[in-house]
């Protein structure tokens, strides 16, 4: 994975609470065997009419929001299914970060593994960002993982939490699988001390 660099981008707000991963990427798109091409289907049922034409009123379809890099969701973004297709679809749709007051656990993990930053902010900042995105879609914010902060147009800096290990991995392009593989000796020790509970091949 490439190291994650600071970036600036425009925002689009989808401030519904509890946006589930079935909305982010409906199940009928999960019959794929790779990660590509899911961007077009991102929020498919909210974004398109039955005939496939885009719904003009849906925020992601508005011309002024095209190319937005930051999605602002409501509370508990990404709940429901564990499908990693959700962050793949969001990345495919051009997003580099999602902002919410909190994220569902599995979505949060999946996003971090793919370099899609889940940014948690307080309610006041959340409301302010939604207003900014809706009132002036040209508004840009800067996201800097190293300092764990977003910078608003008025210069205000808002820090966000992230677990230290994920941060380290994202900033240095370290892949977590490589890290686990490097612990093989520990795993061997563990296995020696703990006989298998079940053997599926038995």
């Amino acid at each position, binding site marked *: 994975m490439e190291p994650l660099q600071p970036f600036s981008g425009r925002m689009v707000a989808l*401030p*519904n*609470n*509890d946006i*589930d991963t*079935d*909305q982010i990427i*409906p*199940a*009928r798109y*999960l*019959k*794929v*065997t*790779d*990660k590509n091409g899911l961007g077009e289907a991102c929020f498919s*049922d909210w974004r398109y009419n*039955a005939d496939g034409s885009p719904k003009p009123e849906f925020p992601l379809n508005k011309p002024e929001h095209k190319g937005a890099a930051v999605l602002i969701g*409501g*509370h*508990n973004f990404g*709940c*429901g*299914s*564990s*499908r*990693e297709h959700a962050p793949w679809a969001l990345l495919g749709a051009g997003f580099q970060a999602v902002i919410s007051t*909190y994220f*569902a*656990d*599995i979505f949060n*993990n*999946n996003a971090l*593994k*793919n370099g899609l930053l889940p940014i948690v902010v307080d309610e006041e900042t959340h409301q302010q960002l939604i207003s900014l995105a809706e009132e002036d879609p040209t508004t840009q914010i800067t996201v800097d993982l190293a300092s764990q902060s977003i910078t608003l147009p008025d210069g205000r800096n808002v820090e966000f939490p992230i*677990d*230290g*290990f994920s941060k*380290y991995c994202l900033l240095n392009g370290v892949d*977590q*699988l490589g*890290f*686990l*593989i490097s*612990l*093989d000796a*520990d*795993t061997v020790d*563990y*296995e020696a001390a*703990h006989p*298998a*509970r*079940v*053997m*599926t*091949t*038995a």
Partner: protein
Amino acid sequence: MSNHTPKTLFEKVWESHLVKPQTAETPAVLYIDLHLVHEVTSPQAFTVLRERGLKVRRPDKTLATMDHSTPTTPRGLDGIIPVTDSQAAFQLDFLTRNCAEFGIPLYALGTENQGIVHVIGPEQGLTQPGMTIVCGDSHTSTHGAFGALAFGIGTSEVGHVLATQTLLQSQPKTMAIRVDGRLSSGVTAKDIILAIIAKIGVGGGTGYVLEYMGEAIRALSMEGRMTICNMSIEGGARAGMVAPDDTTFDYIAGRKYAPQGADWDAAVAKWRTLPSDEGATFDETIVLEADDLTPMITYGTNPGMGMKIIDRVPDPDKMGDVSQKVALDKALRYMDLQPGQSLLGKAVNVVFVGSCTNSRISDLREAAKMIEGRKVADSVRMMVVPGSQKVKAQAEREGLHEIFKAAGAEWREAGCSMCIAMNGDQLQPGEYAVSTSNRNFEGRQGKGGRTFLASPLTAVATAVNGVITDPREMYAESQALEAAT
């Protein structure tokens, strides 16, 4: 006992699986005892293994099945279930090739052990107390009913477990959910969990592992406990657990992968040490009274939007929080329901009995007992989808399929079916379903479809009357009839 810190069930399982404890720099490294795999969330993980030249570290702790994109339509004359969707066929074939190449046992479509991943683990005796179990599927929480720590993971993590049999995990907090007292007749495990989620909300369990306890939980069968743990994720918790007891051991005993002989005795002795110690502390405790519980139903577009079936749809204008008002408004528009409306008497198009929540033999027995001698209303399509081929075979040995068919319901092959609507079993836009599954999200059962989540009893009563029905009267009649015969 003096220096012994009381521990919760979760803490005992967590601590006994630490390859490396959490440090300031790194999350804990947790060893995984059992990894369940299915066709939808594994393909990209196998591709990563192949690209990096990695093996599956412990194929003997891995088991694959086909469930999500599999048809539940009848077998051909050759005994094979035809897969007509070419994309699904490719995905299923890819799993077959991956399992063959990496040495993973596979329960392929239509074979005797195939079924929903969370039905087959317990059914085979693979799910045992004190284990860590993962799967690329959020309903892995089901297996927590046995006192295992079981949770859903993403595809990257599926790759981690395939390659290393370990996972990086931050330690979650613990929440005790105690259900005191005894359930009334016609009120089920499904109603308990719907009531819990209605109380804590779909995000209320985020960051927690739940432990269900109390008299009402103890009184449940293993299958009832699975129904409850299954939907832990619908409250935002990745895992839910129930302390193992004799009910647990009786269920496991004699199954294919259960320990035998002296190993069994040793295992049970060890399992008896797992329940939370007296004085163990939880970060949060929630208490419900079983006496207060009635059949539940959802009215909205997430599992937290649930109520007693006798209640009325809430009014968005009476919500204190603006974002909740907006959410409820949107949900009621999608469902085409009015504030203050009773759902009793509401016509539905489809009744679905199935899914990893309610497709086990006891669910089917209860449903069959209630529908026996009755008919599915002409206006309703009722589908009964057993959770596995073994459940299907057992039900057929007991003649349950004949009862369903005589009533006018469809008796289908095993799989996830209309719970996730990936396989062609789906609602049409605007249709209403009463479903025993776990999610009522917009479009979950088919684009534009509208889902009411409820128990199998409520599903059957609704199928018979053609409109949403409180099942208690019909259930009591069935009980009386059974007692009389």
